[in-house]
């Protein structure tokens, strides 16, 4: 017999999604363990989707339904995670709470944390122990935040809690899954992102893109949200709703970021959000501080595929050999910039979000198969290359806000073997975002020396 509490507790599933036979469903209903509630509620003419929380009436459409032979609403807002029809129901588990196996020593990671990592890790651990608390972990790019989570996760598993690690992007889920499996080999771990069909449904530790949390409700004792400042989480209220709904009412909430938004920073300053800082990278070296370089008529030059003087001089006078990563503001600048850089870099590549070869190009750059990669902001976070210099062309463009600039600067100096790197902001007029980004980096470096 399957472990029903592990399989069903904390989930809101459509009938099609229930991993049960009809006989099992009726048995569970008769024994008061499983209930069903309406999937879309209607109050006079106001509809709400109980799965995604949508109340925007223009995101409900009508369908002449072949199941119930009535014309009724369905929710368009959450269509990618399984259509919700008005005539459907969502499962609610009302049986026993899941009983996660007891583990005396769940963590098998053999590395050691740096002093800064350890201090932060202990605070996160305390939040897990206390429950019903939240904390923001402000760790610079390259601080080694995954390892920093291990003590908190260890405590949670030891206390037989259920844990969720939510991140904005599927590639991060894919990257974290094997690392966590290695660190916690005896814990049931699930990785959920669009397109995973081998989800076991019984994970004690769930690593998921935030979208996938739509199927959970009051499931997790510990909710860790990675990169709270990143797109799409930062922009999408629905995702906040998912994360909130998936956590238990008294859950421990941990937020991770390298570049908190002003809203979070204000909360920290006003002591409304407990925070812990990790101002230093795991290899102990400070963050590279960006250099500002003014170039007249920069935008016109870029559009005309004219090599900016500052970039030319920089490339000609570079002495240390590193790969070069150049950021541009928009896709249509990729080609002009590529064409004027070919004199110096006969082998180069360009990459953007919808590039069909994106993965291969990034892999090849990491394998040092070529020396220059020109990219849009898609490589601003998440990716690490061991030894690169970074240049932003037109750093004053609106796509480069403070968070983006700090993240981009954080691409340099990631490896202990080459812990520094040049970061150049080439611009045609200094912006507030540039000034603030440099200030933020300097502040963190100062904190790191303390």
């Amino acid at each position: 017999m399957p472990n029903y509490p592990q399989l069903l507790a904390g989930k809101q599933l459509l009938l099609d999604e229930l991993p049960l036979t009809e006989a099992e469903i009726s048995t569970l209903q008769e024994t008061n363990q499983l209930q069903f509630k309406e999937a879309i509620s209607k109050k006079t003419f106001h509809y709400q989707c109980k799965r995604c929380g949508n109340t925007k009436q223009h995101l409900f459409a009508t369908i002449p339904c072949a199941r119930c032979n009535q014309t009724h609403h369905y929710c368009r807002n959450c269509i990618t995670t399984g259509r919700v029809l008005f005539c459907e129901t969502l499962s609610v588990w009302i049986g026993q709470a899941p009983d996660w196996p007891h583990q005396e020593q769940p963590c098998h990671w053999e590395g050691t944390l740096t002093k800064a990592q350890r201090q932060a890790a202990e605070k996160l651990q305390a939040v897990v122990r206390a429950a019903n608390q939240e904390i923001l972990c402000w760790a610079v790019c390259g601080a080694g935040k995954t390892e920093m989570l291990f003590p908190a996760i260890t405590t949670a598993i030891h206390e037989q809690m259920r844990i969720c690690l939510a991140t904005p992007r599927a590639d991060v889920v894919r990257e974290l899954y094997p690392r966590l499996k290695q660190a916690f080999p005896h814990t049931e771990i699930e990785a959920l992102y669009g397109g995973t069909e081998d989800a076991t449904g019984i994970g004690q530790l769930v690593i998921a893109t935030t979208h996938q949390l739509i199927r959970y409700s009051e499931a997790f004792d510990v909710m860790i949200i990675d990169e709270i400042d990143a797109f799409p989480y930062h922009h999408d209220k629905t995702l906040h709703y998912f994360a909130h709904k998936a956590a238990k009412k008294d859950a421990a909430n941990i937020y991770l970021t390298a570049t908190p938004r002003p809203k979070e920073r204000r909360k920290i300053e006003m002591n409304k959000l407990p925070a812990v800082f990790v101002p230093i990278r795991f290899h102990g070296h400070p963050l590279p501080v960006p250099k500002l370089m003014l170039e007249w008529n920069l935008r016109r030059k870029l559009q005309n595929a004219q090599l900016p003087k500052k970039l030319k001089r920089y490339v000609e006078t570079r002495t240390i050999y590193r790969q070069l990563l150049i950021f541009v503001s928009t896709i249509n600048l990729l080609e002009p910039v590529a064409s004027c850089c070919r004199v110096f870099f006969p082998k180069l590549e360009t990459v953007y979000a919808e590039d069909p070869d994106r993965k291969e190009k990034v892999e090849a750059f990491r394998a040092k198969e070529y020396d220059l990669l020109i990219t849009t902001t898609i490589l601003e976070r998440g990716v690490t290359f061991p030894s690169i210099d970074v240049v932003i062309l037109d750093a004053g463009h609106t796509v480069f806000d403070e968070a983006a600039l700090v993240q981009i600067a954080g691409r340099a100096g990631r490896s202990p073997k080459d812990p520094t790197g040049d970061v150049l902001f080439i611009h045609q007029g200094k912006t507030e975002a540039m000034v603030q980004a440099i200030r933020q980096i300097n502040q963190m470096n100062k904190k790191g020396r303390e």
Partner: protein
Amino acid sequence: MNICYLCDQSIVPTITWENFFHLPIKQTLCEDCKDKLPLLISPFCRRCGRKQEAETLCTDCAKWESHPDYEDVLKWNRAVFTYSPFMQDFITKWKFRGDYIVIDALFSYLLSAFRHAFDGMSHATLVPIPLTKERQHQRAFNQADVLAKQIEKRTNHAVMPVLSRPSVTSSKQSKKSRKERMETANPFSLDQPLQTPAILVDDIYTTGMTIHHAAKTLKDGGCPEVYSFTLIR
């Protein structure tokens, strides 16, 4: 608020002479998506309507024409769009994810292509390709029905759902490999013979197998001529 049914971006209403004087019709398709629609224009295979260099018979159709069982079951097929990544995304959204409403954005294209192809044939009956009961329940709509009913609404053609598609459950069927079943067994049965010419309606003409099976079922039941019309070829 007006949002594009296909890409979800909000639509800035364009003022034209048409809607300047009339009430603006609700726009459901943005300009970017309009540009991406792969309208199927001639030349194409004169039989199946596939886009190609000349109005000759394509190689697939040459095979159908020389097949003893299928040589004269289908007069010809016409389609609105060619198959492209954009249309693939559309089908995923509409049919597989079940976002029923999105087809609204393509109705005007559907109707003008239909009128162009079947001009002067108003005596022909529209026959949607049916789904099995299970599939129809899961999807909550039959995409071919939706297309046929929309044409019925705006033309003089009537819809007659005379075909059905029994579920594949018999033990004899399941012993064969999936491939064998696809190639040999005709999945359709005729509920009511049709004496008028018929236009089969479906969302996609890919290999033509489905359309030819349905056409043969109609012909065997006495239907004089069978044509077909699909959204995509």
